[in-house]
C-alpha cells in the first residue's frame, strides 16, 4: 500500500472498519433487493409453467370436444360421432348418434386423456366412462347438439395424468 493510499484510508482504519454505516445499509438494501428479485423470478417462473399446463389441458379438451360434435370417425367415435348424410356425402355437424358416442375409445394426448362423456337429453343423463384413471387436474367442456334428434348437452371431462 502506498503512502498516499494509507493517508486516504487513515480515518477509516482508525475506526476499525472498512465500510461506513451508510455503505453497509446500502449493501443490505441491495442484498434485500436481490432476494426479492430472485423470489419473484422463481414465483413468476412457476406461475408461467402452471399457466402453460392449464392452457394445454384446456386447449386439448376443446379440441377433442369440438372434434366429437363436428366430425365422423369410424375408428374412434370419440373424435367424431356425427351422422353422415350419404345422399349429400356430407357430415351433419352437431347431429350425433348416441350409439357412436357409446363406442368411443380412450384417447391419450401427451398425458391428457378423456375421462368421460355425459349426455344430458332433456333431463335424462347418460354417462359414458372412457378411462378409469384418477386425476386431480380435470376440466369439463359443455357443448350443445342434437343427439338422436333430441336437443342435448354434452359434457366432456378431460384430465391430465
Amino acid at each position, binding site marked *: 500500500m502506498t503512502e*498516499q493510499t494509507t493517508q486516504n484510508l487513515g480515518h477509516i482504519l482508525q475506526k476499525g472498519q472498512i465500510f461506513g454505516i451508510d455503505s453497509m445499509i446500502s449493501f443490505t438494501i441491495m442484498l434485500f433487493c436481490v432476494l426479492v*428479485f430472485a423470489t419473484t423470478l422463481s414465483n413468476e417462473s412457476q406461475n408461467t409453467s402452471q399457466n402453460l399446463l392449464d392452457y394445454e389441458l384446456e386447449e386439448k379438451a*376443446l379440441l377433442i370436444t369440438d372434434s366429437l360434435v363436428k366430425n365422423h370417425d369410424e375408428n374412434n367415435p370419440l373424435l367424431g360421432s356425427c351422422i353422415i348424410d350419404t345422399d349429400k356425402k356430407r357430415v351433419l355437424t*352437431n347431429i350425433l348418434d348416441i350409439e357412436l358416442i357409446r363406442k368411443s375409445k380412450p384417447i391419450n394426448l401427451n398425458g391428457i386423456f378423456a375421462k368421460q362423456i355425459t349426455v344430458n337429453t332433456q333431463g335424462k343423463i347418460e354417462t359414458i366412462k372412457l378411462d378409469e384413471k384418477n386425476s386431480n387436474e380435470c376440466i369439463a367442456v359443455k357443448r*350443445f*347438439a342434437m343427439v338422436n334428434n333430441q336437443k342435448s*348437452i354434452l359434457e366432456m371431462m378431460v384430465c391430465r395424468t
Partner: protein
Amino acid sequence: MQNIKNALNINSKKGAIFSLEATISILCLAMLLTTVNYTEKQSNQELLITQQANDLLRVWSTQYENENTMIEDTKIIFGEKAELYINNKKIFSAAQEKNSISTEGIILNQMLQENTIRIVVYYN
C-alpha cells in the same frame, strides 16, 4: 487508488451524471421492475364461447324453435350472460360485463323466411 477516488467522485471529475450509489440504485430499481408480473393468464374462453354460440345456431337451423325455446336453450348454455336478438329485436337481456362476443346467423323458419339471429355473450 486513483481509480477508486475517480469512481467515488465520478460526477465532478469525469463529468458523469450519476454517482456510483445512484447508478447501483437505478440498476436495482430496473431489476425489480423487470420482475413485475405483466403476463396475463392465457385462456381459450373466447374460442369456447364462439363454439357454443355456433352450436346453438346449428341446432336451431335443423329444428327452428320459437322464441321462448331459444331463450331457454341460450340460458342452458350461457346462463344469464347472453343476449338474444331475432331480426335485430332483443328478446332476451343479460347483465353486461367487461367483454363481449357476438355471433350471428341467418336461419330459415318453417315458412322459409329468413331470420337473422344474433347471440351476444358477455364475459370477464
